[in-house]
């Protein structure tokens, strides 16, 4: 149901690539919408990434707070720690 929708939007840039790919891998049920300059992930209830996956994709150590550099927008309640970043609906 649409009432529980969450989303995250990232810039469509090389810096955002590990985050975009991690979101794609870790949220197979999410809808991915490409628009000029940006990529939008939508899902019902929850969406998230884990640090290990992002690090594997980036090929280096990553601080998940780096997502502040390329995140455009989001909707939902944030749950954040060193090893994961999640957005949920209650």
């Amino acid at each position: 149901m649409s009432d529980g929708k969450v989303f995250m939007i990232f810039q469509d840039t090389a810096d955002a690539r590990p985050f975009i790919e991690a979101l794609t891998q870790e949220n197979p049920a999410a809808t991915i919408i490409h628009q000029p300059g940006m990529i939008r992930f939508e899902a019902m209830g929850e969406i998230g990434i884990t640090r290990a996956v992002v690090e594997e994709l980036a090929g280096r150590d990553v601080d998940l707070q780096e997502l502040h550099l390329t995140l455009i927008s989001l909707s939902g309640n944030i749950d954040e720690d060193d090893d994961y970043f999640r957005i949920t609906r209650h």
Partner: protein
Amino acid sequence: MAKKLNMRKRYELLTRGLGWEPTYQSKEKVFSNESYEGIKITDWSKWEDPFRLTIDAYWKYQAEKDKKLYAVMDSFAQNNAHLNLADATYVNALKLFIQGVTPLEYQAHRGFARLARQFSGEGAQIACQMQSLDELRHTQTQIHTISHYNKHFNGMHDPFHMHDRVWYLSVPKSYFDDAKSAGPFEFITSVSFAFEYLLTNLLFVPFMSGAAFNGDMATVTFGFSAQSDESRHMTLGLELIKFLLEQHEDNIPIVQGWIDKHFWRAYRVLALVSAMQDYMLPESPMSWKEAWEIYFVENAGALFNDLARYGLRMPKYHEQATAEAEHLSHQVWGTLYNYAHAASMHFWLPDEKKMDWLSEKYPNTFDKYYRPRYEMWAQMAKEGKRFQNGGLPQLCQVCQVPMLFTEVSKDDPMQISYRSSEFNGEKFHTCSDGCKDIFDHEPEKYVHAWLPVHQIFQGNCGGAAIPDILNWYHFKPEDGGDYAGSADETRWKAMHGETTGAASSDTESAEEKAAA
């Protein structure tokens, strides 16, 4: 070596315990703004920071964002990348942005600086301090980015002066003045929640994506760079609401009243954005109505479902705003076209291609109500009788938009909507039930509104004739009117070698403009 602390612990240590109990003065005196709105805070330590960003990480990431943005701006200027725009009409959206939005960023900077000082909870102080710095950064990066366009196009030379005086800019200005002259909790509910959480996606996301679509890489970059801060601001807005509702049940009706009021105020400001999105972008990735459906209807629906357990409901009159989505941009654009002679940007009639796009996006309304109007105006212009409104419009006492909205939700979309209230024996006019409610709740505040049309008639705006007023606005004669035949158009064509006029290259035209 000591074990590295986890994020929660680190955050706690770097943001809490920084306050102290004042002894020279009472706490009420030190934080004098915290209680007069009737909001009850029993325990500030319950404030939960959604993004656990500490000030050291904040500086690191903000510096990184600015480095990236300035690299793009530099190469944009070096490569004369304004030549790659889809069309020069697009630049008019930037004019509206620098005049209407950038000064709001500065107002937000000041507002959050006050909150950082006035809230007694350290978590909230730090979040507001960061946001205050963000808003100053947005002001500066927008001025820097758009200054490149100011070298080549008209109307962007004095945005802050214009913001304080011009009729169409009093719409965004009065919204922020309203929020800033309220108490700190109302201000943050207004700006962080009603504006940023509920509606800011509509301003930044489709518009900036539109900038990308139209070849404006510099604007995309500042827009998305600002929007990356906006994610944090929206989160602050949501956290604030949850915090207030959890602190005391007496806060619920106060907060609901503010959400109702500021949703409607902010929505009325976005009427200008709807026109920008549907008409000023030569290539539009998304219509206003589509953006409204995604970013308001779906998003706010999900959000208020989450908030229902605190006793909060959707903002009053949200159904009306949704019904108006079919009409809004067309009504606003038509009005702007009528007053193009009194603007510091150009307006124009949509061409066939644009009208077909609008028909497709607005199948229920465009062909029925708005296409015939544009076709008639086009015919009149062809006959040398370009339609312009010689009078001054009646303005709504609250939102300050000219009376252009119609009775859409009463199923009478061709009837202008008028409301009025009596206060102290005088009559005050509003554009809608939403604005009338706002007036009736605090008439003592809104009778003081600085309404540009009233001020002109009272002789406070430089003179009685339109050229005097425009001069007082710091508009130049070549800034407004139709795009066709404008100095901007001539220059744009010269940049692309389409005429053999004096300005044969872009560099020359920029020099000429600087010399003028």
